[in-house]
């Protein structure tokens, strides 16, 4: 293949254009190759990365988290910022609950010079973010994603301020024993988060021995007809059904179970705690239990916070608003303690934190960087809304 004059010229022009622009930006020749050096700046706003679902089926939760985080940022900035007057700034990126999107979002945040990551909702999408932030030495305070797989990564920059699947399972088992349920059916929706709680609960039940697992099964999310699992449950006839998936399918399963004449109790995990659950399930949702961390609705003394939130965003706070709010406050505290935006110093500061007040109680991280207690409580549906049933203390 011979190179003609014309194409040589084309190539030459392209090269010239590219090289001309190379010197002035973050190109390899420009010396900005590692990109993650934004944190080293001594002035200007401090950026916090918030990688949450903005599109896709989990988008509503992403909005709740963004609002919660924004509220904390505004409060801190109104008080004069941190590190002698530097302002905080949120860098919101979409994860869409998909690995590829979340990797792109995390990389974008790193490129933008984020200092701490305060996002992470879908466990499957958060997992591949970890190596990216780890490489850039950016601490991650994860407000929602809580799969045991994240803990098992053992990354030193990862801190989880939501209870883990393990802790949620423990709470579920405690409640089962308190209420004297003898047989239980565990149903998950075959997603990472849901399966995690199912397996963990089954494991703990087996170790404990006082409750029997009558049935452990999975359903395919996104369908309408769940008669197969309803049939299985009716056949196993357990005293309690523990649904560990999300509210969309949870509502349908509750409704179909009730229509089939199921008389036992139903409990759902935190992914199903949403106002839509009882809308979809209809009257059948009444009396359904849930394992959940404290929400502003169920917390005493959170009225002021709810009022602030409403004033800022014109709507009620939702799931994980409080955790995101706390994540930002925690990040600010750690940066202040560290006295710099250096990743290692912030990680040290986070490990040293003791007694920092959060919605879930005073904070101290375990050596695994998880909460020492999950802060899980039991809620119950009353008149279509979740209210506190048992704080398990």
């Amino acid at each position, binding site marked *: 293949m011979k190179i003609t004059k014309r194409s040589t010229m084309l190539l030459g022009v392209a090269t010239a254009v590219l090289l001309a622009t190379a010197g002035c930006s973050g190109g390899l020749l420009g010396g900005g190759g590692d990109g993650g050096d934004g944190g080293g700046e001594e002035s200007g706003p401090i950026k916090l990365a918030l990688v949450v679902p903005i*599109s896709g089926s989990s988008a509503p939760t992403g909005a709740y988290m963004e609002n919660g985080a924004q509220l904390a940022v505004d409060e801190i900035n109104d008080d004069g910022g941190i590190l002698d007057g530097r302002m905080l700034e949120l860098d919101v990126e979409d994860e869409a609950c998909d690995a590829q999107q979340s990797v792109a979002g995390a990389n974008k945040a790193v490129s933008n010079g984020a200092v701490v990551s305060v996002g992470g909702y879908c466990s499957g999408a958060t997992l591949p973010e970890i190596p990216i932030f780890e490489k850039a030495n950016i601490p991650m305070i994860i407000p929602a994603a809580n799969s045991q797989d994240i803990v098992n990564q053992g990354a030193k920059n990862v801190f989880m301020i939501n209870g883990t699947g393990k802790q949620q399972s423990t709470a579920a088992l405690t409640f089962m024993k308190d209420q004297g349920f003898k047989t239980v059916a565990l149903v998950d929706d075959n997603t990472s988060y849901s399966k995690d709680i199912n397996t963990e609960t089954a494991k703990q039940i087996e170790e404990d021995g006082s409750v029997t697992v009558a049935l452990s099964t999975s359903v*395919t999310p996104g369908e*309408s007809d769940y*008669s*197969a*699992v309803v049939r*299985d449950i009716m056949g196993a006839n357990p005293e309690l059904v523990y649904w560990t998936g999300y509210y969309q399918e949870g*509502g349908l399963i509750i409704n179909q179970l009730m*229509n089939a004449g199921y008389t036992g109790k139903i409990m759902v995990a935190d992914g199903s705690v949403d106002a839509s659950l009882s809308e979809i*399930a209809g009257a059948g949702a009444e009396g359904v239990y849930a394992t959940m961390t404290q929400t502003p609705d169920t917390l005493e003394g959170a009225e002021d916070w709810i009022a602030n939130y409403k004033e800022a965003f014109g709507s009620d706070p939702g799931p994980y608003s409080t955790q995101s709010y706390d994540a930002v406050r925690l990040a600010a505290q750690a940066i202040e303690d560290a006295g710099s935006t250096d990743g290692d110093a912030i990680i040290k500061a986070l490990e040293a934190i003791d007694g920092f007040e959060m919605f879930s109680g005073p904070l101290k991280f375990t050596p695994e960087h998880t909460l020492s207690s999950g802060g899980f409580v039991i809620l119950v549906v009353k008149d279509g809304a979740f209210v506190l049933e048992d704080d398990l203390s």
Partner: protein
Amino acid sequence: MPRRTSPKRPTASVTATVCFADPKRILMVQVIWDGLFVGSFYALIALGYSMVYGIIKLLNFAHGDIYMLGAFIGFAALTSLGGIPATLSIGALLVVMLLSMVLTGGAGVLIERFAYRPLRGAPRLAVLITAVGVSFSLEYGIAAIAGPNPRAFPIRLEGNVFNIIGARISLPQIILILIAGVLMILLNFYVQKTSTGRAMRSISLDRNASLLMGINVNQVISRTFFIGSALAGAAGVMAGAYYGKIDFLMGFIIGLKAFTAAVIGGIGNIKGAMLGGLVLGFVEAFGSEWFGGQWRDVFAFAVLILFLTLRPTGILGERVTERV
């Protein structure tokens, strides 16, 4: 009568009876009934696939999304009506269903006119890709208008549960199966006895000859699209009222299943589509009984592939040669 929301549930007696009978046999009866119920939904949607395929040999990929569109039209109509007294809910549902059928039928006609008709002579690949495009447009168009979150349907069919030879059968299920049956009988009458029906059958045999015999081919194709889409729209409203949740992707999987049903029954054959729907319903019910619910779709698609390889004409289908 079905009530909108009934706080009291007919439960205790049902479980009591279950405990005394032979559990194995009850399970079988229940599996068959569940299969029949889901199968009648599949059949309603499969009819549209089959009719369109029979007449212009087009695999209307967007057909499942017409079902979704029907559910959302029903949702919008019921929401704008406001509160409906519980006693009127079945009547309101029928009215809304008719409205939704007319609108989805119209949507089907428009889609045919603007997306498929210009490509009537084009290669099949081009038309199929257009159909995929229409499917995307419908799904994400609805998502843009109504939002990506699932919606709770304003009317909920609820009613007594009967225990017939060990199967739990609820009144809404019976009503919905009856509606589906009536629609299918009407359709069969239309295709067999009216002049338009005759024209449809004639076009599916030989379009050019039909044209020469003075049949307005374009008009008949439009009517086929109208009827097929209206049936899917009816199924959409019924699903919304029975299951209570609708979302913009609800038509995707069920569209695939309905196509599978149409193929099993013999594509292009109306009775075959009904039969195929019921057969697929049973196959799925038994499949998830044997392998577990998470393998149900794998099982259904495996059956489809098996059918296509071993008997591509389906149960009732006639031999179809590929148009070149």
